[in-house]
Structures are given as C-alpha cells and as structure tokens.
C-alpha cells in the first residue's frame, strides 16, 4: 500500500472542509477524483502535501506505511509526494533550471546521494524535457512568470518528470488546456507510469480520462468520497452530471 487515508477530517479557520475521507492507493494504480467545485478536492491534495494552513482534526494519512502527521511539507516531498498545482504560483527571477536543480539536489541529499554536477544535471534535464515533449526554452524562464495557462501546466508535468515521485497528485492539470496541451500532459503521465509509482488525478471533466485511463474513479462530494468505481463511473458522471450524486446524497 502506497497511500492509505482513513477517516480524514480537515478544516481551515475552524471551517470543516474534509469530513471523513477514506482512500487507498496501491503502487501501479491511477486514481481519478472527480466532484463539483468547492467540494474539497484541492483541500485533500493540500492536506496530503502537508500545507500548514489546514488543520487535520481527525483521522490519519499513511504513506509507505509512515504516518505523515509528523513530516514537514518538504520531507513529504522528499519522501516522494508530488503535487501538480491547480494554480501554480510565479517566482520572479528564479529560472526553472535553478529551481529544479535546487529541488533535485535537496531530494538527493535527503536520500544520501551526492548532488548532480552542473553537466549531469543539464543532461538529465534535457532527457526529461524530451520525455515530456517540452521543446521550448521554458527552462530558462522564471518559474511560471508570464506563462500561459498551458505553459504552467506543462511546467508542472515537467517538474514531475524531473522529481520522479512515488505518488503524484495532479490537481486539475487538465483545466483550461487546448487539445494539444492536454495530450502532452496525458502523455507525460502515461510515460512516467511504472509498477512502483501511482497517480491521483483530480479532474472536473472526464475528457482527460480518455487519455489517462484510470483504474479507479472516486466522487468527492461535500468533503467525503461518496462513490467509487471503475473508469465507467467517469462516463456516467459526464452523462448525468453531479445533480444525480446530489440527489442520491440527499435521499
């Protein structure tokens, strides 16, 4: 078991957002989490990553068997949790190359490995760029500064490829993408899929799931996972919308 979430409750400023989430993710699996806006999908991703503004009030998250409660944000990242942000933030003046080199070497240090030399790093980066079809000079630019929506999302996928996480949580990486960008994002994920890693893909639309075939689909609604199924559940949601879930919940 890679990730095991039990009865997770989390709140912000005293307002409870997650109200008892249960989720189990094994190595080699792709899970999709769907659900209406404001239902807690991004919150769940943030809480797994350890964002301190959220209070975990009950339940626990186990990652590779370790309770994450005691680990800082950066320790969780170094253990192999990656979050592809729904709204990646700009860091002016910091080139993606410099940013990634810092990140890669911090993670290597944590694992007891020597830092990559300049040359080694550049070679590795070029190889990863090719893998995720980033042909532009994106990596010379400042992190997300002045990026289009599509560039920001491609950058997230590129960073995932660089950091080779055990668990990647992609938060609406598909929203606002044209079909080409969507394909690049999906291809990135598919190329990085391995028997020893897993993906949690948060999405609003089933469109992405035509490209990334999930093993499981979950519906998050009002802070709880209310329905789980195979990839057909996504199609059903696409067809019927979320009203159907709402009605079922109210009944």
């Amino acid at each position, binding site marked *: 078991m890679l990730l095991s979430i039990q009865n997770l409750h989390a709140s912000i400023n005293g307002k409870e957002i997650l109200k008892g989430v249960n989720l189990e993710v094994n190595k080699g699996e792709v899970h999709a989490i769907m659900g209406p806006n404001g239902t807690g999908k991004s919150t769940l991703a943030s809480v797994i990553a350890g964002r301190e503004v959220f209070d975990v009030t009950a339940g626990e998250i186990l990652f590779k068997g370790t309770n994450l409660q005691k680990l800082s*944000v*950066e320790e969780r990242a170094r253990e192999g949790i990656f979050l592809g942000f729904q709204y990646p*933030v700009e860091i002016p*003046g910091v080139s993606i190359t410099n940013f990634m080199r810092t990140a890669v070497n*911090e*993670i290597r240090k944590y694992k007891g490995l020597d830092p990559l030399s300049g040359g080694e790093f550049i070679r590795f980066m070029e190889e990863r760029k090719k893998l995720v079809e980033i042909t532009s000079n994106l990596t010379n630019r*400042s992190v997300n500064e002045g990026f289009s929506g599509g560039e920001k999302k491609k950058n997230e996928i590129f960073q995932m490829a660089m950091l080779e996480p055990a668990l990647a949580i992609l938060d609406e990486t598909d929203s606002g993408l044209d079909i080409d960008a969507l394909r690049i994002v999906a291809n990135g994920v598919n190329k990085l899929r391995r028997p020893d890693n897993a993906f949690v893909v948060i999405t609003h639309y089933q469109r992405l799931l035509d490209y990334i075939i999930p093993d499981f689909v979950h519906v998050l609604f009002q802070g709880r996972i209310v329905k789980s199924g195979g990839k057909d559940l996504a199609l059903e949601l696409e067809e019927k919308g979320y009203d159907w879930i709402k009605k079922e919940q109210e009944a």
Partner: protein
Amino acid sequence: MESDSNKIIDEVTRGDYKYGFVTEIETEFAPIGLCEDTIRYISDKKREPGFMLEFRLKAYRHWLTMKQPDWAHLSIDPINFQDIIFYAAPKKKKDLSSLDEVDPELLATFNKLGISLDEQKKLSGVAVDAVIDSVSVKTTFTETLAKYGIIFCSFSEAVQNHPDLVKQYMGSVVPYTDNYFAALNSAVFSDGSFCFIPKGVHCPVELSTYFRINAANTGQFERTLIVAEEGAYVSYMEGCTAPQRDENQLHAAIVEIVAMKDASVKYSTVQNWYPGDKNGVGGIYNFVTKRGICKGSNSKISWTQVETGSAITWKYPSCILMGDNSVGEFYSVAVTNNQQQADTGTKMMHLGKNTKSTIVSKGISAGKSQNSYRGLVRVSKNATNSRNYSQCDSLLLGSLCGAHTWPYIQVENKSSIVEHEATTSKISEDQLFYCQQRGIDMESAIGLIVNGYAKEVLRQLPMEFAVEAQKLLSISLEGSVG
C-alpha cells in the same frame, strides 16, 4: 495564516553574522578624540607633504561649522567624536625581513575572510588592496599592472609617489565642503585605494579593495580615488567586514571617480559590515559619500551595490553626467534585517546633452528594520534629449519592517524623458509552499526567492563577486528554522 507565515519568516530571518571575530594584533593608536592635533598626528604618521596637512586642516575647520544632517529616515544615536579613536594601525613586527612582507597574523585574518594575499594563491584575475583599520597592509599585482601604466596602490603610497595626481583629483568630485561626513573624512582619512588607468588602457584584471575594521573604539575613514583617462576601462570591487562588538563604530568613507572621454568605470560593492545583534546593540554606522563624474563625452560610470551589513547605512552613490552622451547607472540591493536601518539611493545629475541614466533599486526588509530608497534625478536645462529610467522595488518579509521610497525628480527641459516605476511585494505563503512541495526547505526557499527578486542587480556584478553576493543575501536572511 498571515501571522503563521510571518512567524516562520521571523524564525528564518534570525541569522548570525559570520565575520565577527577579532584578530589579536599589536596596534598603534592615535590619542582618543578629535582636535587639530589628531589631524597633525595622522598626517605626521603618514609623513605627508604639506599640501595634505593643509587640505585636512581646512576640511576640519569647515567641519566644525557644520551640523550632522538629519533629513534621512534614520534614527541615529548621538555620536561623540571625542570617544572615537581616529587612527589605528597594526604594528609592524620587527622580525619581518622585507618591508613588503605582511604579518602572518594579518594574512591569516584575510584568509579567514576568503581574501588571499599570498602571491602564489591569490585569486587569478583580481588585484587586491587589503586595508585593516586605518592602513593598507598589502596590494597585490602592483608590478604586473605597472606594465600597463596602471597605478593601483594604497592612497598613502599615492600621496608619496604620485602627489601631483592626488593634488589634481582629490576633492574634485567630492569637495570637503560637500557634507558633514565628507568634511570629517577629508580631515581624518587614513588610507584607501588609488587607481589610475592611463589613456586607452583596458585594465586586464578586476581591481578590488577589502576593508576590515579590527580594533575597538576606532572609526575607519578611507578614501578611494579612481581616475580613468580617455578611452580607459576598469572594473573595481569593494568588500568589507568588521568584528562583532556591542558599541557602534563609525565608518565614514569617500569614493571619487573621474571618467574622461570614452572612459568607462564599473564600481561594485558588497557591503557586509557588522549589522549589530538582533536587538540593535552594536554595529557599524556606515556614512559614505560616493560620487563619480562623467567628465568627457561618451563616458560611463556604473555603480552596483549589495548592501547587507551595517546598523545604519547612509549612502547615495551618484553620477554627474557632464559629458554629452555620457551614461550613469545605479544598481542596488539593500537588505535590512532585525533593527538595521538603511537610507540609500542615488543622484543622477544630467548636465550634458543626450545623457542617460538607469536606476534599479531592490530593497528587502525583514525583522523590525527600516529600508528607504532616496533618489534624485535632475535634468538641467542644457541636458537636452536626456533620459532616465528608474525602478524601485521593495520586498517585505514579515509585517514589522518598513519600506519607503522617496524619488525626487527635477526636469528643466522639455525634450528629456524621465520614467519612474515602483512596486512593493511580499514573499507569499503560496510561493513558500510551492518551493517546499518540491523538497526545498524554508531557508533555501527564502534564499531562492530573494535572489530571484534581486537578480537584475546581481547579474551586474563581476563573476568573482556574484556567487559571494548570492550566498550573502541568503545568509543575511537566514537563521535557525526549528
């Protein structure tokens, strides 16, 4: 959430000064306090020609008529000039065989500061003048540079060996009447560097001076004079540190630059004087007058400064753009943390036609510090078709610090264009979380973000300095995260 990230930033910005050690060396002092005899003592120690003593005494008498300026956004404890020692020099050990030989204790001190004076191991491509307290202890590369006709030596040596040049240029850009601290410096200055680049010579190495205050209760008053003749080029760098002490120490310097027709001078500073402890006890008062004159047409003077140290900084490296088509630049990063105060900026005086100036100022405030940009752009009536572009940004870390911007603009003709932009920003919790989510800890994240913010200025620094400056920026804001 706001207070949460402030708390984290507060923790991170509780850094320690890494250069606060004292070297145990026998030192010779002037009698404490300031009077005409002090000045005679200094001039006598240096065996100066009569014109120097005269200059000093005139400056002193003028200084007595002046008052300490109070227009800056600084709160300065009164300075008692009778409690300061105005001259301190390491004693030469008797057993040193040659005059050129430097006390090993001093070599070790500079080594510890990362400055090698050893002819064998010295940094290639950089000539160094090492000044400790009131005197220069060693200048490297002097002979090599002499082959190009370049004079690079301590100010004292210049007075002895090139009195005519000193007489011609000293005080020609910053007269002793200029301001309170300039008058004081002119009266009591003890050493500094002198650079003269003859016509048409492109100086093949970086010239640099490293200033170190060591002795207690002393002030350091150094003076630097750089003259670039027609078509000459030089890049000059200045660095400085001081021991950690509970009392404030005064550093009042003057830098003068003269650039003739087609000459270009690049002056870079990494200022890291002891800033005082986190409660504001001790630290250097850094009151400096730096000014260059672009005397000939098409000349250029470029100031780059990274200011991280000092309890108080009062400093406005300026350009007088006299020659037509001359260019002035000012690139500055000023970091204040804890109780530090900085009031710094520049003056660009456009006198010649088609003159251009660029100002890029990046303030970074943390702790309870106060950080001000003060700048004047003046375009005179005759300076037609002149241009200035100013950009003044402030970055706040935490909510107890202050950032202020005072741009003064005076344009006296209609064909010139002056542009000013200003921004204030904070390091957001979003940015920190983003970095941490990639495995980067809080300290490194702040270092990365701050260096990114200051990049436009840092990339102006010579290679030899840039890496050092980047580290320093992170360290000045670094501390113990739990």
